[in-house]
C-alpha cells in the first residue's frame, strides 16, 4: 500500500485505467490468500480490476514483471501494475507493542533480523524471528537450507571467508553512499506507521562494517567451519515494490515518460543444491540470443542472496571448463568489473524480502543506469529450489 499509493498518485491516469495487477509474493498469509487482489482493491483500482499473485520463490517479483511484459507483447493488455511484496510476520504483531517486545526478549537482539525496507514504497517493517523461516528457506528435495547451498557454491569455486566478508563490507559501503547521496530517493518512499512514526530509510545498512569486523561473526548455517555468516548474507526483511508496464499505445494515450524498455527475459533451472549459480544460466541464454558478450552489458544487478554466491557466479563466468561444459560457451565468458555490478549495494544491506527483491533489482537497475548514463543492463537473481531469472533492460 505504502509504495503503491504514491506511484499511482503521480500518474496522469486514474488507478482504474490498468488492465491487470500482478504481484509476486512467496509467503502468502492466511488472511490474504490473493494479496494482488487485496492490494488492487485497497489501492482504489476498482472492483473490476483483475489481479493475481505469482510465486517462484526469490524470483516472484521479477516473474510479475515478466508476466506483464509477455501479456503486453502479445497485445492483449496495455497497462499492467506489477509488483512484489513480502511480509512473513503476522500483521497484528506490527502494531502490538507488547507482542513485539515479547519477541524481542525471546529471541534477543542478535537473532532478530527485523528491518525496515524502504523501497520504491514501503510497507510496515515487521519483527520476525529467523527460526520461523527456517523451513521455508530449506529446499525439500535436497534438505539443504539456502545458506548451505551457498556453502557448497563457495567450496566448488574456492571462495574464501575473507573474500565473502570483503564483498559484504563493500556492499554495505556502497549502499551507505547511495543513501547519503540521495541516489535511492527516486525509488524509496518513506513509510508512515499508524502511530505516526516515520521510517524514511532502510536501517539494515551497516556502513561501519569492515572485512575485519565481519570476520568475527560465527557461521550462520554450518558450524564450526562454515563461511556463510549473517554478515555476508542477505538480511531477511519485509518490503514491497511496484513498477508500471505500458504498451506503446498506452504510452501515447496517457503521454507517459518511459524510463526503460524490456528487451528480453529468461528463466533457467539447475540442481537445487547449487541454486546460487542460477543467474549464470538465464543471463548467458539472453547474451547468446542477443549475440552479446558479457562485456556488452554495461550494468548488472545480481541479487545478493549471499556474498559467496555472487562471487561464485563471477568465478564461474571466468571458469573455462564450466563455461564450455555447463553453459555451452566456447570459452570463459570473462570477468565483470566490480564497478559494473551491484553498484549501489544490494540485499546484504537493504535486505531480501524474497517476493519483492526481483522487482526491486529491476527498478534499481533502471534508476542506476539513468544516474550513470548507461544504456544496457541485466537484472538477475538466484532462486531457491534451483532456478534463476534474468531480464535485459535498456534505459530510455
Amino acid at each position, binding site marked *: 500500500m505504502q509504495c503503491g499509493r504514491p506511484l499511482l498518485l503521480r500518474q496522469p491516469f486514474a488507478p482504474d485505467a490498468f488492465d491487470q495487477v500482478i504481484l509476486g509474493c512467496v509467503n502468502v498469509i492466511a488472511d490474504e490468500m490473493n494479496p494482488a487482489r487485496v492490494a488492487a482493491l485497497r489501492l482504489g483500482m476498482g472492483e473490476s480490476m483483475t489481479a493475481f499473485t505469482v510465486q517462484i520463490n526469490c524470483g516472484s517479483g521479477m516473474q510479475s514483471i515478466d508476466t506483464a511484459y509477455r501479456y503486453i507483447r502479445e497485445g492483449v493488455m496495455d497497462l499492467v501494475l506489477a509488483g512484489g511484496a513480502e511480509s512473513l510476520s503476522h500483521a497484528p504483531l506490527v502494531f502490538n507493542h507488547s507482542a513485539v517486545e515479547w519477541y524481542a526478549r525471546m529471541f534477543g537482539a542478535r537473532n532478530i533480523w527485523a528491518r525496515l525496507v524502504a523501497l520504491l514504497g514501503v510497507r510496515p517493517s515487521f519483527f520476525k524471528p529467523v527460526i520461523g523461516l527456517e523451513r521455508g528457506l530449506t529446499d525439500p*528435495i535436497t534438505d539443504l537450507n539456502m545458506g548451505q547451498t551457498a556453502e557448497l557454491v563457495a567450496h*566448488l569455486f574456492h571462495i574464501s571467508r575473507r573474500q565473502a566478508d570483503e564483498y559484504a563490507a563493500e556492499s554495505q559501503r556502497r549502499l551507505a553512499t547511495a543513501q547519503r547521496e540521495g541516489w535511492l530517493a527516486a525509488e524509496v518512499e518513506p513509510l508512515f506507521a499508524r502511530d505516526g512514526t516515520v521510517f524514511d530509510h532502510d536501517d539494515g545498512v551497516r556502513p561501519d562494517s569492515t572485512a575485519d569486523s565481519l570476520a568475527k561473526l560465527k557461521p550462520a548455517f554450518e558450524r564450526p567451519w562454515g563461511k556463510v555468516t549473517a554478515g555476508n548474507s542477505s538480511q531477511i526483511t519485509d518490503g514491497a515494490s511496484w513498477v508500471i508496464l505500458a504498451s506503446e499505445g498506452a504510452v501515447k494515450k496517457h503521454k507517459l515518460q518511459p524510463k526503460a524498455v524490456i528487451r528480453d527475459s529468461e528463466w533457467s533451472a539447475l540442481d537445487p543444491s547449487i541454486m546460487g549459480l542460477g543467474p549464470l544460466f538465464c543471463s548467458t541464454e539472453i547474451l547468446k540470443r542477443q549475440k552479446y558478450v558479457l562485456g556488452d552489458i554495461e550494468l548488472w544487478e545480481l541479487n545478493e542472496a549471499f556474498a559467496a554466491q555472487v562471487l561464485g557466479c563471477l568465478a564461474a563466468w571466468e571458469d573455462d571448463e*564450466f563455461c564450455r561444459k555447463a553453459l555451452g560457451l566456447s570459452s570463459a565468458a570473462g570477468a565483470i568489473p566490480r564497478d559494473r555490478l551491484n553498484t549501489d549495494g544490494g540485499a546484504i544491506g537493504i535486505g531480501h524480502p524474497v517476493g519483492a527483491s526481483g522487482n526491486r533489482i529491476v527498478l534499481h537497475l533502471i534508476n542506476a543506469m539513468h544516474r550513470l548514463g548507461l544504456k544496457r543492463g541485466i537484472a538477475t537473481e538466484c532462486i531457491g529450489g534451483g532456478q534463476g531469472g534474468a531480464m535485459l533492460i535498456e534505459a530510455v
Partner: protein
Amino acid sequence: MEETRIPALDVLGRRNLELGPFVDGGQSVGPWVHWKLRADQDGIVWLLLDKKGTSTNTLSEDVLTELDAALTTIEQDRPRALVIRSAKQSGFIAGADINELRGVTDPTKIEALIARGHGVLDRLDRLPLPTVAVIHGYCLGGGLEMALACDHRIAIDDASFGFPEVLLGLHPGLGGTVRLSRLINPVQAMTMMLTGKTLRPSAAKTLGIVDAVTQERHVIGAIKAAADRSLKLHRPGMLVGLLNSSPARALLAPRMRRETEKRAPRRFYPAPHALIDLWAEHGGSAAAMQKAEISSFARLLVSETAQNLVRVFFLRNNLKGLASGTWDGKRIHVIGAGAMGGDIAAWCAWHGFTVSLADMKAEPIGGAIKRATELYGKIGRDNRRRIRDSLDRLIPDLRGEGVTSADLIIEAVPEALSLKQKV
C-alpha cells in the same frame, strides 16, 4: 550451432573432493608412484594415496614401502601437520591387497611381511606432529588400521568404517586389534571386529573412532582445527582402561567366547576365537598384543579356512566382474504386482530406476506399495530423501501404460498358462 551442455553439478562434482594444495594443478614433490606429497600455504603437508592402475585404493606391500619413504621425508621436514587422504573418488582405502595374501604357506614369511607393515604404521603413529586422516567412502580393514595410526580421523558424511577380516577367516593384522581396543570401549571394539559390520560416520563418531563428521566443503576448516589442536580429540576414557584390565578381561572374555561359539564354532571358524584369545591374553599390554597379533594373523592366514574364504572372495569378485556389464536403461516395467513382481519393482526403484508396476487390480499394487514402504524403512533407515525418491519412482500402472516407454519389461504374473498367454 549445435551445443551439448552438461548439468552443472556433473561438471562441478569432481571438484567436490577437497585435495588441498593439489587443487589448482599442484604437483607432487615426491618421487613415488602411489603417493603424492605437497605442502599447502599453511605449512600443512598433504599425503594423497592414489594407487596406480586402479580406481580403488588397497594397501599393498609397495604402497606401504612408499609410505615408509614418504615418512622419512616428513620426519626430516617436520611440517606443521600431516594430512593423509585418498585422491580417489571411490573412497579412502578398501583394505589390504588380498591378492598378496593368496596361496601363502609359510607363516614366518608372512610374519616378516606383516612386521614390516607394522613398522611403517608405528612410524606414522610416532610422528611428532598432528596427523589427520580425512576419510570419505570405504575405510575398511587395513585402511582403517592406517587411519587409526593417525592422531585425528575426520569423516566425510559418506564414509563407512569396518573390519571385515573375520569374513575372510582372519582378524585385523596391521595393529588394528591393538589400536581399536585402546581407542574405544574394548567390548565395542571386539564386537566390531567379531561381526565385521561396517559403521556409518555417525555411529563411528559415537563410538569415538572419528573426531568429527563433516562435508567436503569443511575439510580445510577441520584440518586447520586439528593442526592447531583446537579440534576436540576423542580420548579413551577411564572405562577403556578399566575394561582392558586383567580382571575385566577375565570376566568378559568367556562371555564373548560363549556368544561367538553359538554363531561361529571354533572348529570351523578359528578367527573370531583367535581374536578373543588375543585380547584376553594380551589386552593389558599394547606391545605384547601387537606382537601376538602378528603371529596369530600369520597362523590364520595359512589355515585352510582362511585360504578357502579368500578363494571364495575372489570367485565372487570374478562373478561380480562378469555381471558388471553396463546397462543404460532407466525405465523398467513390471507386470504383476504380486509378492515377486512387487518386490522386484521395489528393489529396482530403490536402485534408481523408474519403475511402472502394472496389475489388473489396484489391491495388489496397494499391497506392493505397502511392502516397498516397509522394505525402504528397514534398508533406508533414516535416509528420508532416498525413501521418498524411491517411492516417487515406483509408479502404480493400472492400465499398463508404462510398457511403451520401458527399457526393460519384467513379467511376474502367477504361473498359469492362460494368464501368461494373455500377458
